Protein backbone atom coordinates (compact mmCIF):
# COMPACT_ATOMS: atom_id res chain seq x y z
CA UNK A 1 0.00 0.00 0.00
CA UNK A 2 1.24 3.47 -0.85
CA UNK A 3 2.08 5.86 2.01
CA UNK A 4 -0.89 8.02 2.96
CA UNK A 5 -0.07 11.74 2.76
CA UNK A 6 -2.16 14.62 4.06
CA UNK A 7 -1.65 18.36 3.84
CA UNK A 8 -3.46 20.88 5.99
CA UNK A 9 -3.98 24.62 5.71
CA UNK A 10 -4.28 26.29 9.12
CA UNK A 11 -3.70 30.05 9.59
CA UNK A 12 -1.46 30.82 6.65
CA UNK A 13 -1.80 32.44 3.25
CA UNK A 14 -1.73 29.13 1.28
CA UNK A 15 1.62 30.18 -0.18
CA UNK A 16 3.22 26.98 1.11
CA UNK A 17 0.61 24.97 -0.76
CA UNK A 18 1.28 27.07 -3.88
CA UNK A 19 4.94 26.13 -3.53
CA UNK A 20 3.83 22.49 -3.20
CA UNK A 21 2.08 22.84 -6.58
CA UNK A 22 5.35 24.23 -7.94
CA UNK A 23 6.71 20.69 -7.69
CA UNK A 24 5.37 20.71 -11.26
CA UNK A 25 6.04 17.43 -13.07
CA UNK A 26 7.29 15.89 -9.85
CA UNK A 27 3.63 15.91 -8.75
CA UNK A 28 3.06 13.05 -11.21
CA UNK A 29 5.93 11.15 -9.66
CA UNK A 30 4.52 11.87 -6.21
CA UNK A 31 1.09 10.62 -7.27
CA UNK A 32 2.72 7.29 -8.17
CA UNK A 33 4.50 7.09 -4.83
CA UNK A 34 1.83 8.30 -2.42
CA UNK A 35 -1.87 8.56 -1.85
CA UNK A 36 -3.10 12.08 -1.07
CA UNK A 37 -5.81 11.38 1.49
CA UNK A 38 -6.55 14.90 2.73
CA UNK A 39 -5.61 18.34 1.42
CA UNK A 40 -6.97 21.69 0.26
CA UNK A 41 -6.32 20.21 -3.20
CA UNK A 42 -8.75 17.30 -2.77
CA UNK A 43 -12.40 17.26 -1.79
CA UNK A 44 -12.34 15.28 1.44
CA UNK A 45 -14.14 16.81 4.40
CA UNK A 46 -12.62 15.07 7.40
CA UNK A 47 -9.04 14.36 8.34
CA UNK A 48 -8.76 10.55 8.02
CA UNK A 49 -7.15 7.99 10.30
CA UNK A 50 -3.85 6.23 9.66
CA UNK A 51 -2.06 9.04 7.87
CA UNK A 52 1.64 8.39 7.37
CA UNK A 53 2.83 11.93 6.65
CA UNK A 54 1.04 15.20 7.40
CA UNK A 55 2.28 18.58 6.12
CA UNK A 56 0.82 21.40 8.16
CA UNK A 57 0.88 24.95 6.81
CA UNK A 58 0.14 27.98 8.96
CA UNK A 59 0.18 29.02 12.58
CA UNK A 60 -2.35 27.81 15.13
CA UNK A 61 -4.50 30.89 15.49
CA UNK A 62 -8.05 29.89 16.45
CA UNK A 63 -9.87 27.13 18.32
CA UNK A 64 -10.63 25.31 15.08
CA UNK A 65 -6.90 25.22 14.18
CA UNK A 66 -6.12 23.95 17.66
CA UNK A 67 -8.69 21.15 17.47
CA UNK A 68 -7.40 20.24 14.00
CA UNK A 69 -3.80 20.14 15.25
CA UNK A 70 -4.74 17.53 17.84
CA UNK A 71 -6.65 15.47 15.25
CA UNK A 72 -3.63 15.59 12.94
CA UNK A 73 -1.31 14.44 15.70
CA UNK A 74 -3.63 11.62 16.81
CA UNK A 75 -4.04 10.31 13.28
CA UNK A 76 -0.58 10.81 11.79
CA UNK A 77 2.72 9.02 12.19
CA UNK A 78 4.91 11.89 10.99
CA UNK A 79 3.98 15.57 11.27
CA UNK A 80 5.90 18.26 9.37
CA UNK A 81 5.66 21.95 10.16
CA UNK A 82 5.25 23.23 6.63
CA UNK A 83 6.80 26.70 6.28
CA UNK A 84 7.57 29.69 8.48
CA UNK A 85 4.08 30.34 9.89
CA UNK A 86 3.87 26.77 11.25
CA UNK A 87 7.48 26.94 12.44
CA UNK A 88 7.74 30.44 13.93
CA UNK A 89 4.29 32.04 13.71
CA UNK A 90 5.72 34.44 11.11
CA UNK A 91 3.19 36.81 9.48
CA UNK A 92 0.24 35.10 11.18
CA UNK A 93 1.75 36.06 14.55
CA UNK A 94 2.04 39.77 13.70
CA UNK A 95 -1.47 40.23 15.06
CA UNK A 96 -0.36 39.07 18.50
CA UNK A 97 0.35 42.62 19.63
CA UNK A 98 -3.38 43.23 19.55
CA UNK A 99 -6.26 41.57 21.37
CA UNK A 100 -8.57 39.15 19.56
CA UNK A 101 -11.40 41.70 19.93
CA UNK A 102 -9.33 44.43 18.26
CA UNK A 103 -8.44 42.08 15.39
CA UNK A 104 -12.05 41.13 14.71
CA UNK A 105 -13.18 44.77 14.86
CA UNK A 106 -10.38 45.82 12.52
CA UNK A 107 -11.21 43.09 10.00
CA UNK A 108 -14.98 43.19 10.02
CA UNK A 109 -15.74 46.83 10.81
CA UNK A 110 -12.85 49.23 10.16
CA UNK A 111 -11.61 47.64 6.94
CA UNK A 112 -14.97 46.53 5.57
CA UNK A 113 -16.05 48.22 2.33
CA UNK A 114 -19.70 47.86 3.17
CA UNK A 115 -21.95 46.01 5.60
CA UNK A 116 -19.48 46.57 8.39
CA UNK A 117 -20.85 44.45 11.21
CA UNK A 118 -19.24 42.27 13.78
CA UNK A 119 -20.02 38.58 13.32
CA UNK A 120 -22.74 38.23 15.92
CA UNK A 121 -23.40 34.53 15.74
CA UNK A 122 -20.63 33.09 17.93
CA UNK A 123 -20.18 30.04 15.70
CA UNK A 124 -20.03 31.93 12.39
CA UNK A 125 -16.27 32.39 12.66
CA UNK A 126 -13.85 30.28 14.66
CA UNK A 127 -12.96 31.99 17.92
CA UNK A 128 -9.47 33.50 17.81
CA UNK A 129 -6.93 32.36 20.38
CA UNK A 130 -5.26 35.20 22.31
CA UNK A 131 -2.09 34.59 20.23
CA UNK A 132 -1.27 32.83 16.97
CA UNK A 133 1.41 30.29 17.90
CA UNK A 134 3.69 27.89 16.04
CA UNK A 135 2.45 24.32 15.58
CA UNK A 136 5.04 22.85 17.96
CA UNK A 137 3.57 24.99 20.76
CA UNK A 138 0.42 22.83 20.51
CA UNK A 139 1.53 19.37 19.34
CA UNK A 140 4.75 17.42 18.93
CA UNK A 141 6.27 18.09 15.51
CA UNK A 142 8.68 15.65 13.87
CA UNK A 143 10.42 17.89 11.31
CA UNK A 144 10.42 21.47 10.05
CA UNK A 145 10.32 22.84 6.51
CA UNK A 146 11.58 26.42 6.47
CA UNK A 147 10.93 29.43 4.31
CA UNK A 148 8.13 31.73 3.30
CA UNK A 149 7.32 29.62 1.39
CA UNK A 150 9.57 26.53 1.53
CA UNK A 151 11.15 25.90 -1.86
CA UNK A 152 9.72 23.11 -4.02
CA UNK A 153 13.13 21.41 -3.85
CA UNK A 154 12.97 21.36 -0.07
CA UNK A 155 9.42 19.97 -0.13
CA UNK A 156 10.46 17.36 -2.67
CA UNK A 157 13.50 16.30 -0.66
CA UNK A 158 11.44 15.82 2.52
CA UNK A 159 8.59 14.00 0.78
CA UNK A 160 10.71 11.72 -1.35
CA UNK A 161 12.80 10.72 1.69
CA UNK A 162 9.67 10.01 3.71
CA UNK A 163 8.10 8.04 0.85
CA UNK A 164 11.27 5.94 0.73
CA UNK A 165 10.78 5.18 4.42
CA UNK A 166 13.57 7.43 5.66
CA UNK A 167 13.41 10.28 8.17
CA UNK A 168 14.52 13.32 6.13
CA UNK A 169 17.83 14.68 7.36
CA UNK A 170 17.25 18.08 5.79
CA UNK A 171 20.52 19.59 4.58
CA UNK A 172 21.35 23.00 6.00
CA UNK A 173 21.26 24.30 2.44
CA UNK A 174 17.46 24.18 2.76
CA UNK A 175 17.51 26.14 6.02
CA UNK A 176 16.00 29.50 5.15
CA UNK A 177 14.06 31.94 7.26
CA UNK A 178 11.69 34.23 5.41
Amino acid sequence: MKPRVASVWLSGCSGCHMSFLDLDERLIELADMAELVYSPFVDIKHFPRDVDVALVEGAVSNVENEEMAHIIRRNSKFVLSFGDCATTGNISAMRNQFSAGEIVRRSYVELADDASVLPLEPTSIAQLMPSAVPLHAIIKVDAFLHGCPPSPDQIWFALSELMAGRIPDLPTAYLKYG
Partner: protein
Amino acid sequence: MPILTFAMNGHQVSGHDDETLLQIARQHGIHIPTLCHLDGLSDIGACRLCLVEIEGQDKLVAACVTKPQEGMSVHTDTERLQRYRRTIVELLASEGNHQCAVCVVNEHCQLQDLAYAVELQYVRFPYLYPKRTLDATHKDFVMDRNRCVLCSRCIRVCHEVEGAHTWDTAGRSFHCTIMADMDQPWGTAASCTSCGKCVWVCPTGALFEKGQTVAEMEKHRDFLKYIVTARRTGEWIAEEEEGE
Protein backbone atom coordinates in the same frame (compact mmCIF):
# COMPACT_ATOMS: atom_id res chain seq x y z
CA MET B 1 53.97 46.33 25.61
CA PRO B 2 54.29 42.78 26.93
CA ILE B 3 53.42 39.90 24.65
CA LEU B 4 51.67 37.00 26.31
CA THR B 5 51.54 33.40 25.17
CA PHE B 6 48.63 31.15 25.98
CA ALA B 7 46.56 28.33 24.49
CA MET B 8 43.39 28.64 22.42
CA ASN B 9 41.64 25.39 21.49
CA GLY B 10 44.91 23.60 22.24
CA HIS B 11 47.03 25.79 19.95
CA GLN B 12 49.67 28.20 21.20
CA VAL B 13 48.72 31.81 20.44
CA SER B 14 50.20 35.12 21.42
CA GLY B 15 48.90 38.63 21.82
CA HIS B 16 49.49 41.93 23.58
CA ASP B 17 48.22 42.30 27.12
CA ASP B 18 45.86 45.11 26.09
CA GLU B 19 44.19 43.09 23.35
CA THR B 20 40.99 41.10 23.92
CA LEU B 21 40.63 37.36 23.54
CA LEU B 22 38.33 38.07 20.60
CA GLN B 23 40.96 40.18 18.80
CA ILE B 24 43.66 37.59 19.39
CA ALA B 25 41.37 34.76 18.23
CA ARG B 26 40.62 36.60 15.00
CA GLN B 27 44.30 37.31 14.39
CA HIS B 28 44.88 33.56 14.60
CA GLY B 29 41.97 32.67 12.32
CA ILE B 30 39.79 31.32 15.13
CA HIS B 31 36.14 32.20 14.58
CA ILE B 32 34.06 33.30 17.57
CA PRO B 33 30.49 34.41 16.82
CA THR B 34 29.52 37.96 17.83
CA LEU B 35 26.56 40.29 17.58
CA CYS B 36 27.06 43.42 19.70
CA HIS B 37 30.75 43.68 18.75
CA LEU B 38 31.66 45.79 15.75
CA ASP B 39 35.22 46.68 14.74
CA GLY B 40 35.67 50.38 15.42
CA LEU B 41 33.28 50.59 18.38
CA SER B 42 33.95 49.96 22.06
CA ASP B 43 33.08 46.52 23.42
CA ILE B 44 30.45 46.01 26.10
CA GLY B 45 29.94 42.21 26.28
CA ALA B 46 26.17 42.57 25.97
CA CYS B 47 25.08 39.80 23.62
CA ARG B 48 27.08 36.98 25.29
CA LEU B 49 27.55 35.14 21.99
CA CYS B 50 31.34 35.36 22.25
CA LEU B 51 31.40 33.52 25.59
CA VAL B 52 34.47 31.30 25.94
CA GLU B 53 35.66 28.77 28.51
CA ILE B 54 38.85 29.22 30.47
CA GLU B 55 40.31 26.05 31.98
CA GLY B 56 40.21 26.05 35.76
CA GLN B 57 37.26 28.41 36.12
CA ASP B 58 33.57 27.58 35.95
CA LYS B 59 32.43 31.05 34.95
CA LEU B 60 32.27 31.71 31.22
CA VAL B 61 33.67 35.03 30.03
CA ALA B 62 32.86 37.24 27.04
CA ALA B 63 35.87 37.15 24.69
CA CYS B 64 35.28 40.75 23.53
CA VAL B 65 35.93 42.22 26.99
CA THR B 66 38.44 39.73 28.43
CA LYS B 67 42.21 40.27 28.35
CA PRO B 68 44.61 37.34 28.14
CA GLN B 69 46.84 36.00 30.89
CA GLU B 70 50.14 34.22 30.42
CA GLY B 71 49.73 30.45 30.27
CA MET B 72 45.92 30.39 30.33
CA SER B 73 44.00 27.83 28.27
CA VAL B 74 40.94 29.09 26.41
CA HIS B 75 38.31 27.05 24.56
CA THR B 76 36.08 28.81 22.04
CA ASP B 77 33.84 26.10 20.60
CA THR B 78 32.98 23.42 23.15
CA GLU B 79 29.68 21.56 23.22
CA ARG B 80 28.61 23.63 26.21
CA LEU B 81 29.35 26.89 24.39
CA GLN B 82 27.51 25.70 21.28
CA ARG B 83 24.49 24.88 23.44
CA TYR B 84 24.60 28.30 25.08
CA ARG B 85 24.98 30.11 21.75
CA ARG B 86 22.02 28.29 20.29
CA THR B 87 20.01 29.19 23.38
CA ILE B 88 21.00 32.86 23.08
CA VAL B 89 19.85 32.97 19.45
CA GLU B 90 16.56 31.31 20.44
CA LEU B 91 16.05 33.83 23.24
CA LEU B 92 16.75 36.74 20.88
CA ALA B 93 14.30 35.31 18.35
CA SER B 94 11.56 34.77 20.91
CA GLU B 95 12.03 38.09 22.73
CA GLY B 96 11.38 40.40 19.76
CA ASN B 97 9.02 40.37 16.80
CA HIS B 98 11.18 39.02 14.01
CA GLN B 99 9.26 38.25 10.82
CA CYS B 100 12.01 37.61 8.28
CA ALA B 101 9.53 37.27 5.43
CA VAL B 102 8.59 40.95 5.57
CA CYS B 103 11.87 42.41 6.82
CA VAL B 104 13.86 45.00 4.91
CA VAL B 105 17.16 43.17 5.58
CA ASN B 106 15.92 39.61 4.96
CA GLU B 107 18.95 37.58 3.82
CA HIS B 108 21.30 40.41 4.85
CA CYS B 109 20.67 40.17 8.58
CA GLN B 110 23.26 39.38 11.22
CA LEU B 111 20.67 37.83 13.56
CA GLN B 112 19.56 35.57 10.71
CA ASP B 113 23.21 34.71 10.00
CA LEU B 114 23.65 33.62 13.60
CA ALA B 115 20.52 31.45 13.41
CA TYR B 116 21.92 29.81 10.27
CA ALA B 117 25.27 29.33 12.00
CA VAL B 118 23.67 27.42 14.89
CA GLU B 119 21.38 25.63 12.40
CA LEU B 120 18.28 26.73 14.27
CA GLN B 121 15.38 24.47 13.31
CA TYR B 122 12.81 25.92 15.69
CA VAL B 123 12.63 27.97 18.87
CA ARG B 124 11.99 25.94 22.00
CA PHE B 125 10.82 28.90 24.08
CA PRO B 126 7.40 30.55 23.90
CA TYR B 127 7.50 33.69 21.75
CA LEU B 128 6.79 36.79 23.83
CA TYR B 129 5.21 38.93 21.08
CA PRO B 130 6.04 42.18 22.92
CA LYS B 131 4.11 45.30 22.06
CA ARG B 132 6.75 47.60 20.64
CA THR B 133 6.69 50.84 18.70
CA LEU B 134 7.87 51.97 15.29
CA ASP B 135 9.23 55.50 14.83
CA ALA B 136 9.03 56.83 11.26
CA THR B 137 9.20 60.50 12.20
CA HIS B 138 12.75 61.01 10.88
CA LYS B 139 12.81 62.32 7.31
CA ASP B 140 15.19 59.65 5.99
CA PHE B 141 15.19 56.72 8.41
CA VAL B 142 12.92 54.41 10.41
CA MET B 143 13.43 52.81 13.82
CA ASP B 144 11.37 49.62 14.13
CA ARG B 145 11.82 48.47 17.72
CA ASN B 146 10.13 45.14 16.92
CA ARG B 147 13.37 44.04 15.27
CA CYS B 148 15.75 45.51 17.84
CA VAL B 149 18.06 43.13 19.73
CA LEU B 150 19.42 45.86 22.03
CA CYS B 151 23.01 45.35 20.89
CA SER B 152 23.50 49.13 21.41
CA ARG B 153 25.69 49.55 18.33
CA CYS B 154 23.54 52.56 17.35
CA ILE B 155 24.11 54.16 20.75
CA ARG B 156 27.85 53.57 20.62
CA VAL B 157 28.41 54.73 17.04
CA CYS B 158 26.37 57.89 17.68
CA HIS B 159 28.27 58.67 20.87
CA GLU B 160 31.76 57.48 20.01
CA VAL B 161 32.09 58.21 16.30
CA GLU B 162 29.51 60.86 15.40
CA GLY B 163 29.72 62.54 18.81
CA ALA B 164 26.02 63.37 18.87
CA HIS B 165 24.70 60.88 21.48
CA THR B 166 21.18 61.02 20.13
CA TRP B 167 20.47 57.42 21.10
CA ASP B 168 20.35 55.87 24.54
CA THR B 169 18.40 53.19 26.37
CA ALA B 170 15.22 53.72 28.33
CA GLY B 171 13.62 51.27 30.74
CA ARG B 172 14.93 48.01 32.09
CA SER B 173 14.66 44.30 31.32
CA PHE B 174 11.75 43.49 28.96
CA HIS B 175 10.83 47.17 28.87
CA CYS B 176 14.27 48.27 27.72
CA THR B 177 14.12 50.19 24.43
CA ILE B 178 16.29 52.49 22.37
CA MET B 179 15.22 56.11 22.71
CA ALA B 180 16.11 59.30 20.84
CA ASP B 181 17.17 62.29 22.96
CA MET B 182 14.69 62.65 25.85
CA ASP B 183 12.57 59.68 24.70
CA GLN B 184 10.88 61.68 21.97
CA PRO B 185 10.07 61.07 18.30
CA TRP B 186 13.32 60.68 16.34
CA GLY B 187 12.29 63.39 13.89
CA THR B 188 12.18 65.93 16.74
CA ALA B 189 15.53 64.95 18.27
CA ALA B 190 17.62 68.11 17.97
CA SER B 191 20.95 66.33 18.57
CA CYS B 192 20.54 64.03 15.53
CA THR B 193 22.73 65.08 12.61
CA SER B 194 20.97 62.65 10.21
CA CYS B 195 24.37 61.12 9.41
CA GLY B 196 22.86 57.61 9.18
CA LYS B 197 25.73 55.81 10.94
CA CYS B 198 23.32 54.10 13.35
CA VAL B 199 21.34 52.75 10.41
CA TRP B 200 24.40 51.19 8.80
CA VAL B 201 25.80 49.57 11.93
CA CYS B 202 22.47 48.06 13.05
CA PRO B 203 22.75 44.26 12.67
CA THR B 204 19.04 43.75 11.96
CA GLY B 205 16.24 45.61 10.20
CA ALA B 206 15.49 47.71 13.29
CA LEU B 207 17.07 50.75 11.65
CA PHE B 208 16.57 51.20 7.94
CA GLU B 209 16.35 53.77 5.18
CA LYS B 210 12.95 54.95 4.06
CA GLY B 211 11.93 53.74 0.63
CA GLN B 212 13.50 50.30 1.04
CA THR B 213 11.25 47.29 0.89
CA VAL B 214 11.51 43.59 1.80
CA ALA B 215 15.03 42.15 1.48
CA GLU B 216 16.24 45.26 -0.36
CA MET B 217 18.60 46.75 2.15
CA GLU B 218 22.19 45.53 2.41
CA LYS B 219 24.20 47.24 5.09
CA HIS B 220 27.79 48.18 4.34
CA ARG B 221 29.80 48.74 7.48
CA ASP B 222 33.23 49.42 5.94
CA PHE B 223 32.86 53.17 6.45
CA LEU B 224 33.42 52.71 10.16
CA LYS B 225 36.86 51.16 9.67
CA TYR B 226 37.75 54.08 7.36
CA ILE B 227 36.69 56.75 9.83
CA VAL B 228 38.24 55.09 12.88
CA THR B 229 41.54 54.40 11.09
CA ALA B 230 41.67 57.89 9.59
CA ARG B 231 41.12 59.47 13.00
CA ARG B 232 43.95 57.46 14.50
CA THR B 233 46.43 58.05 11.68
CA GLY B 234 45.30 61.52 10.68
CA GLU B 235 45.19 60.42 7.05
CA TRP B 236 41.78 60.75 5.46
CA ILE B 237 42.52 58.62 2.43
CA ALA B 238 40.20 55.84 1.37
CA GLU B 239 42.02 52.54 1.20
CA GLU B 240 41.73 50.66 -2.08
CA GLU B 241 40.32 47.35 -0.91
CA GLU B 242 41.63 44.44 -2.90
CA GLY B 243 38.95 42.48 -4.68
CA GLU B 244 36.17 44.86 -3.69
